[in-house]
């Protein structure tokens, strides 16, 4: 009784930290909550679901727009499609003698079952044109050897499969274009399920598309997902690197010498209000298309903030440290290299960690200028074709990359700067392990030095 009651107590403490297990729990919940909401909206049918997502499509006479399985349409239009296809089949059955049809049209008609085969893994998704396998699938479904379950065929469609197979079976056991009938086969009636709008795909669809895209080998001349990812990382890191090379020294100088502060900071302050993307066309004109203008955009977007932040951090250094050094007779150069720089290092590290996150925000704009590239090009193309299930994995990847990098860097802070006292137990244990040999050595030398 008591332990259960205490579970609900003490969650809301004013200005006091929770226990570490509760903090961990809440961190997990902060991720689980949006995920759960996403699942809820996606998988509970009576919430929203205004569209029909096609599982099986058919081409209609006199309509040049090709809808394929996976496309979203409105329920009204779906009804129109179903009615029109049924009408075509009825007309076909009624007409005597049967009209002529091209073998090609029948070949395409057989491929109507391809999405069913793919969703059951009877066919890899790249092989929607594998007529030999599809032809056997018609046989297997007609004879009941294979029973599709996801999506299951409606009784109406099962019937059509049987009728068509009755026509095909006497002609050839295996697929060949030449032996297809010259009269049209019956068309499968479109099937679909209620779905959310195309811009909100369900979690499993996003997972599946992401998995496919990252595993796929791209056609020649195009980049794989991993290559795109590397390219994006390169743009960010190089932009950030150059920003550090220029920004950190200037920032430190501005923080130490009033001369540089007044010389640089007013202009920097002015310049940082000009949004970096406004320079994009200029950068492309100067540096030509390629990676250079992209890196330069990340650089411009980051460096001015960096100078100001670093100079502020430098100014915050405890003045008593400088006074002490001066009293001990340090030269100005020694003050800079032995006092200022080591003194600000832990804070500088943190500044750079936050600024790296800042640099990431320029990625998308940088990759759009000149020749589109990297992950953004993929997002752009797929978004244009409304394949949002393929866009989300990339967006999530960028988020995860930023988050994980930041967590690792923040964890490393405890290891690199143990004296700031911000290290967590694991970092401290790691550190102890790392320095164990040195401790042993120093102990040994102590012992050797002590006269006994």
């Amino acid at each position, binding site marked *: 009784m008591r332990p259960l009651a205490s579970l609900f107590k003490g969650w809301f403490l004013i200005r006091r930290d929770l226990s570490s297990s509760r903090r961990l729990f809440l961190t997990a919940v902060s991720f689980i909550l949006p995920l759960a909401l996403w699942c809820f909206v996606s998988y509970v049918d009576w919430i929203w679901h205004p569209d029909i997502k096609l599982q099986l499509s058919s081409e209609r006479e006199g309509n*040049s727009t*090709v809808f394929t399985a996976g496309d979203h*349409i409105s329920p009204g239009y779906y009804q129109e499609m179903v009615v029109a296809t049924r009408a075509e089949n009825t007309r076909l059955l009624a007409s005597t003698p049967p009209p002529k049809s091209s073998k090609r049209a029948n070949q395409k008609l057989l491929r109507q079952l391809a999405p069913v085969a793919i969703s059951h893994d009877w066919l890899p998704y790249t092989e*929607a044109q594998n007529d030999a396998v599809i032809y056997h699938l018609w046989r297997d479904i007609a004879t009941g050897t294979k029973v599709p379950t996801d999506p299951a065929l409606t009784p109406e469609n099962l019937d059509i499969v049987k009728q068509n197979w009755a026509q095909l079976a006497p002609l050839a056991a295996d697929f060949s274009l030449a032996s297809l009938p010259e009269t049209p086969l019956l068309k499968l009636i479109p099937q679909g399920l209620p779905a959310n709008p195309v811009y909100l795909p369900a979690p499993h669809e996003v997972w599946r598309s992401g998995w496919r895209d990252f595993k796929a080998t791209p056609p020649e001349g195009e980049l794989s997902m991993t290559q795109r990812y590397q390219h994006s990382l390169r743009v960010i890191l190089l932009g950030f690197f*150059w920003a550090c090379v*220029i920004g950190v020294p200037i920032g430190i100088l501005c923080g130490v010498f009033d001369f540089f502060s007044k010389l640089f900071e007013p202009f920097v302050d002015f310049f940082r209000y000009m949004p970096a993307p406004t320079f994009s066309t200029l950068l492309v004109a100067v540096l030509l298309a390629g990676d*250079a203008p992209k890196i330069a955009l990340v650089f411009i977007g980051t460096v001015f903030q960096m100078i100001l932040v670093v100079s502020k951090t430098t100014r915050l250094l405890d003045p008593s440290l400088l006074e002490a050094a001066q009293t001990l007779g340090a030269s100005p150069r020694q003050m800079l290299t032995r006092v200022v720089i080591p003194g600000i290092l832990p804070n500088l590290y943190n500044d750079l960690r936050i600024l790296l996150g800042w640099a990431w925000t320029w990625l998308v704009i940088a990759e759009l200028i000149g020749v589109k590239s990297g992950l953004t090009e993929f997002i752009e*193309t*797929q978004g244009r074709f*409304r394949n949002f299930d393929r866009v989300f994995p990339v967006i999530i990847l960028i988020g995860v990359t930023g988050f994980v990098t930041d967590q690792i860097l923040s964890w490393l802070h405890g290891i690199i700067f143990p004296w700031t006292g911000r290290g967590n137990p694991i970092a401290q244990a790691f550190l102890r392990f790392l320095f164990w040999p040195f401790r042993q050595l120093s102990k040994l030398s102590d012992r050797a030095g002590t006269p006994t």
Partner: protein
Amino acid sequence: MNPNRFLPLMVVAMLGLACGPGRAEPLKIGYSDWPGWVAWEIGIQKGWFKEEGVEVDFQWFDYVPSMDAYVSGKIDAVGMTNGDALVTGATGKPSVAFLLNDFSNGNDMVVAAPGIETLADLKGKKVGLEEGFVPHLLLLSGLEKAGISADSVTVVNTPTNETPQVMASKAVDAISAWQPSSGQALKAVPGSKPIFTSADAPGIIYDLMYVSPESLEKRRADWMKVVKVWYRIADYIRDEKNLDDVLKILSARVKVTPEEYEPFLKGTYILTLEEVIKHWGQSDDLKTIIGSSKKVDDFNVKFGVYDKPQDLAKYLDPSLTLELAKEKGIAP
């Protein structure tokens, strides 16, 4: 101690930022999502350029940026329509066509939202299209044909690639674009339909490969090889046996499925070497490239796309095609 120590470091860093490698010499060709140009992909993927012994560097662009890249000298040649080549020539950089890929046979469309059945219904409506380029030409010539004044519709300047989204957002009542964008628009708004297409005015839009006059002069032999590869591609596409393979290659480049791509091929009439010769001939109608260009030129001047009529003969050089035809025994 001395802050000047940091200066050389900064200078080095700046230089590093500006440096880029400079190595060249393959023919640099820009191509975009028009089916007649995506067709180059067949030659690229099957290694036919290597077989022919010519080094090419095909660079993929959106259409209008591909012309910008040509104007800025980044590429030697680019796929353009005959109309847009005149616009680019009058306002940017002249070019000369040495290869005629195809004519648009329905792929360029004015797509209208449900409820709009004919061009006449467009009066007082908004149309999204890329101003001054080929979709604009298509709309204006459609309106002219239907006897409607150009002022009676409002044009909303929209990049062709963005037209499907703009159409879906209902910000405009119709759009003018080519495949795959026009098809995407039809899909994005179920029930919408094409109310005027290039099939209603075949020959108004020819698609060609334009090269800078200087590169054609310097590397004529290499461009000849490109022409040879093209007619190998054209024969491959026109052979029905290869349809599935062709659809697979082309659709993958523009990221749609082969089934969706099939109608695009029908809307693009790829010309074989036998067929193309008469289109290089002389006439006043849309049956020849010169006749079509004349129409478009008049049109562009009339609607103020540019001021002065262009010297059309300068834009066309059929000599490479005719040479190949002679070589193959097809009399010009």
